[in-house]
């Protein structure tokens, strides 16, 4: 903590967002959440197709029959992009397991990019976990249940 600066100015700010968002009318919290959950439900069938494409691209980005990788291998970036995409939306769509497995794989890729020896067996395990989570998505869509 430095000495008192004394020249910091505190300025009241009112933006267009602040004035318009508080207008009368609008949507109640309960109504907004219910409507958003219903909307996400309608997106689930397309989500399964998108997920298939992302997993396919992720798996094809990872080299097979290789037991070494350097931290600047281009496949790491390619795999990370697809893995991060799955991680960022899985739980929002109701599939926490997808996000969990994708997050683990992201962590592995990050440490490899930081210079740690590439654990290909751990990557393979996380890919298998993602494929299992994908089956859970298919089951949920078939039965219409919320995971």
């Amino acid at each position, binding site marked *: 903590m430095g000495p008192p600066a004394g020249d910091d*100015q505190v300025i009241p700010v009112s933006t267009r967002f602040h004035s318009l968002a508080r207008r009368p009318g609008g949507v109640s919290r309960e109504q*907004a959440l219910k409507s958003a959950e219903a909307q996400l439900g309608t*997106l689930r069938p397309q989500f399964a197709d998108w997920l298939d494409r992302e997993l396919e691209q992720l798996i094809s980005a990872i080299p097979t029959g290789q037991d070494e990788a350097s931290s600047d291998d281009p496949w790491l970036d390619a795999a990370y992009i697809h893995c991060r995409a799955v991680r960022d939306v899985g739980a929002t769509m109701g599939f926490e397991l997808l996000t969990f497995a994708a997050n683990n794989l992201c962590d592995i890729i990050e440490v490899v990019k930081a210079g740690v020896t590439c654990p290909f067996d751990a990557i393979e395990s996380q890919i298998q976990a993602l494929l299992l989570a994908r089956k859970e998505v298919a089951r949920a869509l078939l039965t219409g249940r919320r995971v």
Partner: protein
Amino acid sequence: MPRENLNLHGLNFLIADSNSYFCMICQSILRSFGATKIYEARTAMDVNRTLVEQRIDFLLCDSNLPPDGGLKLTHEIRWSVASEYRTIPIVILTTDTRINTINAARDAGANMVVAKPVSVSSLYNRLAWVAFHPRSFVDAPSYFGPDRRFKIEGYPTGVGRRKSDQDSGVTEESGQAMGQDDIDSLLNLARKG
């Protein structure tokens, strides 16, 4: 959490994220909340252009936005002295919720941080918080952005760093101190009503 309704109709939202599928999901959620005008940006350059062209009112920005990340972009927006968007509400979206990242987002001038993957309720709560709890901006030599003080529980050195801060130290003793008998009799009176 405020009980009032959020009225997002007609406000211009900008979602800045390199993942188009994430943006699409975010758009759906915001539309369910009543937003009608939502734009997307994939890079910081897109953001800077869209801010001006579409007169954006609220920015949701990924912390990994290409090329240099959402925190650097937030810092640049806050330090664009001549820009009318300098005080725009900015919410940072991030998967990295470590305290260092949250502090960095706060110090860059973000209004709020939302953890990814976003949940419908967390997004609504943050929007409502920003709308119903507007914060003053602090203009200091090393910081421009929303007041980072959410509550004052005394200053570390007993003296605030701003001119407007009141001294929170213990004041000088004045008058005669109360004895234990005086305190007991006061408490007894209070108990008897």
